[in-house]
Structures are given as structure tokens and as C-alpha cells.
């Protein structure tokens, strides 16, 4: 039994459930062969007779959407339903051309599942009630002061997966962590571009508060949140608003609310009394979906390593939590850059793994984030580079600072650097470890710095740093400082 007292706000237990609309990354729309990517398209240019709801037009289910939903099921840790079907949900609005939305009401493709969310001090399971496929509506624009509205149907028919959580969350931290984890799951499973800026994921948060921990309070639903931060803020705002209202003797009404990001406030949109009767019934134009077990298994077999698994891989490295999060987020920031396969390559040597992971966290990821123009390299190229850099570092030819320089050069170089060792050597990154060569330099430096040499002979070891510095200067940074020190010791017979 979960200890609920830690969640109490002024004696009230907040309870949160989240519905998330995930836009699936299909080439074409859910029920028509029209381009699904409307980001740069002029309004109403990606519209067929089906999207437009013309008389006689019939929806034809995009099978890719089914495959992606099956992937999403595995990402949510559950097998998809063998039998599902679409229903019609009726309401009138100009951006809903047919007068109904095709959705899965009675028999969704996903029932059950769970999401492991990572909190500052623990991990928690959030249950998934269901997830269903549906088509998006078009986009309405209401211009201030105009007596008309504009409708763009480019988005009409875009495939969405609506993921409904159980009311298992009790704080804004958990709500935010859930939203973030869902984002990672959809990205890792390659189900969605999950670009929040373009509204690829939209969150509706249901919040209620109750003094009686065994009874849920009346909930409000704040719709269309498009960032993890707004999820967190809206939940905080609603908890406070509801508790304050109840404390003042008021009553919570079940309603739909919107989020004003500028004011950081929710606002009332529509109460339950104004709610629609959607008159759902099975969509007669689309035969029920029956999935074949072999098909399900074949998709399961292609599931990539998911974030939770990756966290387990990284565990032995004892990374600090923010570094681990950085890696896990970075993995899905650019579809062309994968860090995990590089890390996997070094998994057999803990030493190498730690070093390469640190290079990724401290050098490559920040560099790519700050310089989006840095070109993508294939996993193989990067594994080869890191292997060579590691080898050079390991043998003492390349110190840590030079390793950083080298990695940056490789990433920023316009032409691929084919011979790393030669390049590093030409750039003067390689340390001189040849003792006779270094001995020459040491002798010279000791002779040039008589006072320091005498001080050292008299036991003032703190001048070693100065002498090593001189040696590095003399060697233009190439001398291996450890070897230089060893030679000083030999020559002065400390």
C-alpha cells in the first residue's frame, strides 16, 4: 500500500489521471492516402475527398497506424488486443467535416499496460487504462475582432493514439514525470515524432482533490497542454484552486478547462451540463480489426531497447541522475544520432564504458545541442572514432584534454577524418612518451632553470609543477607529463 500522507496539500489528497494524444508517424493519414506531415503545408492543401467529408467518400484504414499502435502497446508493456473496432463519435463543428470523428470507443486496440516513472527518490508504476486509435480534427482559427473563423483541414484525419492513464498520480512531480516518460516511450518505440512544439503530443490532465482518501473528489479536466512544464504547472494550479475553493466552502464542478500559459492559470471552458451526447456506434464503413498473433510477434521482435532497459545498462556506471537523464533524453533528440549503440559497443569493458559514456555526456551531447549544424555520423563511424580515441588515451599518447579537442575536431570537421592517429599527431595532440626524447628536454629545462633545480635537490618538491610546466612548454605540450616527472626523479635521484 502506497503511503499517501506525503502527498497531502492542506489535508487534501490530490489525484491525477492523464489522457495523452500522440500523433503517429505514418506517411499518410489514418483513413486516406494523403500526406500526414502538414507542418510546412499551406492550409487546405493536404485534403482529399475523404478528409473533406464529401458525399460518398469512405474511410480506408491505414495499416501502418495499426503497426504503430502495436508497437505502442509493447512500449506500454502490454500485448495489443486481437479484436478491436472503430466507432463514430458525433458532434457538429466546422473542423469536423463528417459530423463525426472515427475513434475506438467500445473495443480499443490497447487495454491495460503500465508506465514506470522515475522520481527523484524512487520509481513508480502508473497504470494504463486503455489506448485507442482515432483521427484528428482540422484546425480552427478564430481571429480577434473578425466575424468569421478559418478552418484548415490539413490535420483532419491525422492518426492519433489516445493513451488514458489510471488515476494513479498524486502530485505535479508525478504528472510531469509521467508525461516525460510517455514522451520517451513513444520516441524510443518510434511510434511518434513526439515533437511537442508541433503538438505531436497533447496532454489533458484530470485533477481532483479529496479529504477522504478512499473517495475521489469531483474532477476538472484541463485540456491541450503541450509541454511537461505546463502539465506540472496546470496540476499545481488546479490542486491549489480546488483546495482553496473547498476551504472557502465552495464546490468543485465537473468541467473542461483550458490553460493560459502567459498567465500560468487554468480557465473554465465548458461544464458537464453542456457536455455532448456523442451517440457512439460501431463504424459500419470499416470492418473490425483482427490482429494475427504472428503479426504481433513479428512487431514485438523489432522492439528497440527501451529507456528502462537502458537505465539498467547504465546502472553499474553509477552516473549521477542528471547525467543519466541527459543520455536517455539525448538518445531520441535526433533520429540520426544514437548514443546507445556506441555505449553498447564498450559494454564489455567497464573502464572503457565509463570513459566513452563521459565523453558522450560531457563533450558530444552538449556540442550537438549547442551546434545543431554538426553533421550526423553513423554509429559505426562513431564507434570506430571512440575506439581509437580510447586506445590512444589508454596507451598514454593522448591526454584527457587533447582527447576532448580531438572529439570536437572530429565532430566539427567538414570532411571525415580518416586516419585519426595521423590527424592527432599532425595537430600535435599526441604526447611524446619516448623516454630518450623526453630526457633530452628534461636535461635542457633543468640546465636552464638552475635555481629551481637546486631547490628541488634541496627537497622543495613544490617546484616540480613549475619544471613540468617548462617541459611541456619546451615540448609544445607533447611530452607525457608522467614520464617527464619520472625522468626528473631519475636525473635528480630523489
Amino acid at each position, binding site marked *: 500500500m502506497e503511503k499517501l500522507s506525503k502527498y497531502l496539500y492542506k489535508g487534501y489528497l490530490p489525484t491525477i489521471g492523464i489522457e495523452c494524444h500522440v500523433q503517429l508517424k505514418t506517411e499518410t493519414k489514418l483513413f486516406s492516402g494523403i500526406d500526414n506531415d502538414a507542418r510546412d503545408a499551406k492550409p487546405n492543401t493536404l485534403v482529399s*475527398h475523404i478528409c*473533406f*467529408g*464529401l*458525399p*460518398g*467518400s*469512405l*474511410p*480506408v*484504414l491505414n495499416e501502418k497506424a495499426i503497426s504503430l499502435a502495436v508497437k505502442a502497446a509493447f512500449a506500454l508493456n502490454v500485448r495489443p488486443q486481437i479484436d478491436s473496432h472503430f466507432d*463514430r463519435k*458525433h458532434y*457538429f463543428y*466546422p473542423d469536423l*467535416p*463528417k*459530423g*463525426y470523428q472515427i475513434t475506438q470507443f467500445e473495443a480499443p486496440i490497447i487495454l491495460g499496460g503500465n508506465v514506470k516513472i522515475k522520481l527523484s527518490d524512487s520509481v513508480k508504476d502508473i497504470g494504463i487504462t486503455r489506448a485507442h486509435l482515432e483521427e484528428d480534427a482540422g484546425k480552427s482559427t478564430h481571429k480577434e475582432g473578425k466575424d468569421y*473563423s478559418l478552418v484548415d483541414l490539413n490535420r483532419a484525419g491525422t492518426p492519433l493514439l489516445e493513451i488514458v492513464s489510471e488515476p494513479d498520480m498524486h502530485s505535479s512531480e508525478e504528472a510531469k514525470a509521467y508525461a516525460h516518460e510517455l514522451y520517451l516511450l513513444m520516441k524510443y518505440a518510434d511510434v511518434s515524432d513526439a515533437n511537442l512544439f508541433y503538438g505531436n503530443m497533447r496532454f489533458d490532465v484530470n485533477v481532483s482533490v479529496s479529504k477522504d482518501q478512499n473517495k475521489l473528489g469531483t474532477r476538472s479536466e484541463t485540456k491541450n497542454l503541450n509541454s511537461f512544464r505546463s502539465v506540472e504547472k496546470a496540476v499545481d494550479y488546479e490542486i491549489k484552486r480546488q483546495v482553496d475553493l473547498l476551504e472557502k466552502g465552495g464546490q468543485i464542478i465537473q468541467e473542461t478547462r483550458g490553460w493560459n500559459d502567459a498567465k500560468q492559470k487554468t480557465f473554465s471552458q465548458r461544464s458537464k451540463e453542456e457536455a455532448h*451526447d456523442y*451517440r*457512439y*456506434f460501431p463504424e*459500419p*464503413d*470499416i*470492418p473490425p480489426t483482427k490482429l494475427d498473433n504472428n503479426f504481433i510477434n513479428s512487431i514485438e521482435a523489432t522492439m528497440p531497447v527501451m529507456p528502462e532497459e537502458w537505465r539498467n545498462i547504465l546502472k553499474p556506471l553509477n552516473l549521477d541522475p542528471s547525467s543519466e537523464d541527459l543520455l536517455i533524453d539525448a538518445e531520441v533528440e535526433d533520429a540520426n544520432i544514437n548514443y546507445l549503440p556506441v555505449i553498447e559497443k564498450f559494454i564489455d569493458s567497464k573502464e572503457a564504458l565509463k570513459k566513452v559514456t563521459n565523453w558522450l555526456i560531457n563533450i558530444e551531447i552538449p556540442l550537438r545541442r549547442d551546434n545543431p549544424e554538426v553533421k550526423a555520423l553513423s554509429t559505426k563511424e562513431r564507434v570506430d572514432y571512440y575506439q581509437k580515441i580510447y586506445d590512444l588515451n589508454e596507451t598514454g599518447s593522448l591526454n584527457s584534454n587533447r582527447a576532448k579537442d580531438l572529439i570536437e575536431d572530429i565532430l566539427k570537421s567538414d570532411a571525415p577524418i580518416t586516419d585519426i592517429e595521423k590527424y592527432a599527431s599532425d595537430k600535435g595532440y599526441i604526447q611524446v612518451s619516448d623516454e630518450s626524447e623526453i630526457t633530452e628536454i628534461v636535461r635542457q629545462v633543468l640546465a636552464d632553470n638552475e635555481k629551481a633545480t637546486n631547490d628541488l635537490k634541496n627537497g622543495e618538491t613544490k617546484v616540480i609543477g613549475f619544471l613540468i610546466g617548462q617541459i611541456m612548454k619546451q615540448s609544445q605540450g607533447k611530452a607525457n607529463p608522467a614520464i617527464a616527472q619520472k625522468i626528473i626523479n631519475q636525473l635528480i635521484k630523489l
Partner: protein
Amino acid sequence: MKKWPLITTIANDVNNSKTTAVELVEESLRLIDQNQEYGAIISVLKDKALERAKFIDSEIKSGKNMGRLAGVPFIAKDNILTIGSETTAASNILKGFIAPYQSTAIEKLESEGAICVAKANLDAFGHGGSTENSDFMVTKNPYDKTRVAGGSSGGSAASVVLGLAPFALGTDTGGSIRQPASFTGCIGLKPSYGLVSRSGVIAMASSTDVVGPLTANVSDCALVLDVIAGKDPLDSTTIDRQSGSYEDIDDNIKGRKIGLIKEYLSDSLDEEIKQAINKTTLKLKSAGAEIIEVSIPSLDYALAVYYILCSAELSSNLSRYDGQRFGYSDKTAVNLSESYFKSRAKGFGTEAKRRIMIGTYVLSSGYYDAYYRKAQLVRTKIIQDFHEVFKQVDFLIGPVTPTTAFKIGEKSDPLSMYLSDIMTVGVSLAGIPAISIPMERENGLPIGLQLMTKQRKDKELLGLARKVEELI
């Protein structure tokens, strides 16, 4: 009443330059013009049809074969989209609507050289059994102008009987091909559900809507079906064709078991129809068929179930006519909801509104289980009962309608109009194929015989139809 040669003969003559597509189209256009008083035609595609005819003739001149329907004029019910020309579903809300894409059925016919010359009248959106619910006009029965031609494909049936074109396309949701075929005395086939694509057909009730031919004889019917039948990537509910050609039919009925549906032979059936059926039954028997009386008790509920499910689906299908993107839009409205209310109130006729109300009601929360869900359960039972009875017999026969064509204006009460569908809706709910074929009659009005069989046995059904045609 013009009698056209067999469609195969016409197409052969066109392909062999014995006649021209232009002559055929001109003949058809002339007949359409002469027979305007019957109210069968909503719009004529004169220029387009002639243009196509000229093209076909010139291709043939250059040595090409233009297909199995080369140069054959036809008439399509006006709820089937014809690209570039008006398609109204006989409703004011779609008056002036120019179809921006082609229906699959028309596409397939045209690819075999057929030429659509006109669009036929119907009850608006298919809601009715007499074309009296057309927002434009009533189609009159070619045998008695004071009587209806049936509906909703009344314009298509009358066109074929008047000989305006060798064949017509209709749609059947609860009897809309079979009943007007029966009232006017032509052949009307309702194929298995899904055998003909609904893409580009203005939906009435999606789960029973089927496109089918209305023709003067069974051979023409088989040919047209063969051209339009088959799976369509644009309609997910379409099914595979039977193997081979639908023209390749076997009319041997020796030893075939034919079930006479008891429920359809009640006292409310016109005596005249009963006698015609008895006569035909005797002929089938002497031709070697075994006639068995069968009972399908759940058919008693078919009409109620049909009017619940059909209204539910059509109320949904008619939602898109909202005055916002196409069709009638009321310009006096000052805001969105007023635009919806006024456009739909003025655009839809009385029957469409009545059915939208019924459909909306049966789908409303609190009533869904009592009406829609229960009706679906009974529908499943009806399907099972048909399935059971086809274990005993190969075919079913019965009347198409309880009466012959009634007088225009006679059925002012909507319920009595609904009751005239009582013998056709069971087949629609079960999705099985059925055909109406005219029986012998003495000076009276045409009477159709309804033949039915298992789903996807349309070819066998055509075999029996040809036998009946031969016997009568």
C-alpha cells in the same frame, strides 16, 4: 416503350461499326426528352455523353475494341457520383452539387465503354419506397401514370421499363432496387453486400447499402454485374468476386431445393400476388425443382430492426450536410449554430428529418441499449436464421412487396409506407443477394418474384433467375 437489343449485341455492333455510340446516345437522349412526363430523370448529361460517344466512335474507327459495354447508354440513380456533373440524391441540400470525383461503379462501367446519359430520380437520399420523397418530382409508373414506380430507385426502374437506356444503376438499402423493379416489371438485382463498391455512392445506411443493376433481362443483368462486381481498395467492406464470369451461369434447377418463405405468404398479401407466386412455383416444380415451405420466425422483427439500424446509420451519414463546405447553406444565418439549424432545416425534406430524429433518438445515451444494441442482437439472429435455412434449401422465393404499385399519394402515413418494405428488409439485414424478376400477369400491374440465396452466391442466383425468366 422502347425495346433495346441485348447489351452484348449493342456493344458488338458498336465495336464492329454496325452502329455508332453517337447514334445510341442520341436515341437515348431523344427517348429521355419524349418521356419527361414520367419524372424518371433529374438531369441529362447531354454534352458529356455525346462527347464520350464521339471519342468511343473515333477509337473504334482507329481499330480499337472499346469494351463489353462499348457505346451502351445507361442511366445512374442520382445518389451515385458522376464526376463533373450534378449529383443531388434528389435532395434540395445537394442541389447544384457537382461531383468532384468518380464513383467506382461508374468508373468500371465507363472502362468497358458504357456512357452515362442521365441521372435518375429517387426518394431523397433513398428514404422511401415511391420516389414521392424526392425533393424534385414523383416518378410515375410506366404502366399506370396515376401510380408510383416504387422506390427509392424508382427513376432507374421506370427508365429501364420505358426503354430510355438499355440499363440503369440503382442502390438497394432495404429493397430500393427490388421493390421498384417489382412495381414496374423489370429485373432488379440487389447483389451480396460488399460485392459492388460503395465508393462514390451517397450513403444511406452503410451496413446495407448496395449498388446493383436494373435491366430488361437476366443476361444484361449478369453482364452489368460482372463489370461492376469486385473488391475495391476505396471501400473496405467490399468482398471478393466469385471465380469466373457472372455471365457464365448454370440455369439447371433439377433437384434444386427452393424454400417458400411462410412468413411472407400471410393473409395481408394481395391475392393476385399469391396466385402469381403459386403459378410460378408450380412451373419451377415441373421444371424439376423441389419446393419446400420454410419458416424464418425472426423475420417478423426484420422491419423494426431495419428501421432502427437504418435510421441510426443514416442520421450519422447525413451529419456532413451542415451547410459549411458544400451543398445548401443558409445565408441569413448570423452565427454558426444558426447556420447549422437553418441550412439543415431548409435543406432536408420531411422524411430525411423524420429519420434523422429516429436515428438520433435510438443512438442517444439512455436509449442505445434498448434500441440500437437490441436491434443489432436481433439482426445477428436474423443472419443466423437465414444461415440455418440455407442448410435445408439452395434458394428462397417469395413476393417482393405485399401489394402491386400503389396510387400516388395513397400512402400519406409514413408507417404504412415503411410497411411496404416488409418483404425486402430481411435480405438487406442478412447481406444476402436477392433479385426481383417479373412474373406473368393478366392485364394487371407488374408483379415481381423475389429470389434469394446465400451470400456470395450471386452467380447461382442469376442461374435461377434465368430459369424463371425462361419459364414465364
